[in-house]
C-alpha cells in the first residue's frame, strides 16, 4: 500500500474470502487481460470467420517454417492472421484487402508478413502468379504499385510468399492491398478465393509498442 505506507492486506489482514470476493477477482482478471492486450473493451466481432477457415489457417501456420527465425527479444510479440476480403476483380486479376487493427498491439511493428493462398491446378501444369503490393501514398487518391513478386506454382495446394518491407509497413498502418495477377483466365480460376476453408490470409508477426521505440539516424 504505497499511499498509506502500511502493510499490504495480503500479508497481515484476515484470510482472503474467495467466495465473497469472486466478482472482484473476475473483474480484476478481465481488466488485466484487456490491459495487457492494449484493449479498452472486449472486441465485438464484426466479420466472423468460419471455423473451417480458422482451422485451416492455424493448421497451415503450425507446419514447419522455412524462413530464418527472427531475433527474439523480451518485448511481447503477436502473430496476427488476417483473412482476405476480395475487392475489384477482372478476368485475370483479383484484389485482396487485409485489415489490421493498428491499436491491437498499441502501435505495432510488423516484423514479418506471409501471404498464404490456395491454388487448384490440373496435373502437370505450371502457372505464374504475380503478386503486386499496392499502397495509398499520402495525399494520393489512387493506389500505387510499390513492388511485385512473381511466383511459379507447379502443384495444387497452399502456397506462401514472404512479403517485403512495403507490405509490412502497410500492415502496421492497418491496411494491406494485394493484387493477384495471372497470365490467363484459366490460371486465374485456379486461385481459390472464397472457399470456406481455403480463404487466403496474411500471417503477420508483430512486436508490441513499435511506435514508442527510438531509432538513431
Amino acid at each position, binding site marked *: 500500500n504505497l499511499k498509506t505506507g502500511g*502493510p499490504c492486506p*495480503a500479508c497481515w489482514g484476515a484470510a482472503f474470502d474467495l467466495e465473497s470476493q469472486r466478482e472482484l477477482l*473476475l473483474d480484476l482478471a*478481465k481488466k488485466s487481460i484487456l490491459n495487457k492486450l492494449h484493449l479498452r473493451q472486449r472486441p465485438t466481432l464484426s466479420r466472423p470467420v468460419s471455423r473451417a477457415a*480458422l482451422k485451416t489457417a*492455424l493448421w497451415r501456420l503450425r507446419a514447419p517454417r522455412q524462413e530464418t527465425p527472427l531475433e527474439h527479444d523480451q518485448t*511481447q*510479440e503477436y502473430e496476427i492472421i488476417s483473412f482476405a476480403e476480395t475487392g475489384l476483380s477482372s478476368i485475370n486479376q483479383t484484389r485482396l484487402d487485409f485489415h489490421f487493427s493498428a491499436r*491491437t498491439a498499441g502501435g505495432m511493428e510488423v516484423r514479418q508478413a506471409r501471404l498464404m493462398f490456395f491454388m487448384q491446378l490440373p496435373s502437370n501444369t505450371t502457372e505464374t502468379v504475380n503478386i503486386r503490393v499496392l499502397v495509398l501514398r499520402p495525399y494520393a487518391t489512387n493506389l500505387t504499385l510499390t513492388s511485385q513478386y512473381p511466383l511459379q506454382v507447379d502443384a495444387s495446394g497452399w502456397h506462401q510468399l514472404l512479403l517485403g518491407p512495403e507490405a509490412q509497413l502497410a500492415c502496421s498502418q492497418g491496411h494491406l492491398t494485394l493484387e493477384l495477377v495471372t497470365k490467363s483466365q484459366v490460371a486465374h480460376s485456379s486461385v481459390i478465393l472464397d472457399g470456406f476453408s481455403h480463404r487466403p490470409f496474411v500471417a503477420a508477426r508483430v512486436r508490441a509498442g513499435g511506435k514508442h521505440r527510438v531509432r538513431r539516424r
Partner: protein
Amino acid sequence: GVNCQGGSKMCCRQEFFVDFREIGWHDWIIQPEGYAMNFCTGQCPLHVAGMPGISASFHTAVLNLLKVNTAAGSTGGGSCCVPTVRRPLSLLYYDRDSNIVKTDIPDMVVEACGCS
C-alpha cells in the same frame, strides 16, 4: 511455494480459475478455455521474510527467528506475500477486425508465492 489449504493463514498460493464461458468471453477468445489467474494470500511473519518461499528448512526458520528477536522494535509489516514464480498466458483471440491474434502475455499466471 505452498498451495492454500483449509484454514492456513500463512503465505500461500490460492488457485483461481476464470472460465471464459462463464464471463461471456468464449466468443472472442478462441484458446484457452480459461485463465488460471491464481493469487498470493496469507501472512508473512518476519521470521519467514526475505526468502523466495516459505521457510526452506527448520534451521533457516530458526535462524530467521533469531534475527527477528535481535532486531529492536521489529513489529512493522515490511514483508509481503507476493508471487515468486509466474508464467505467461498464451492467448488466441479475435481482435476487433476479426483477425486472429496469437500472443503470450508475460507474467500472468501465478505459479508460486513467497514472502518478500
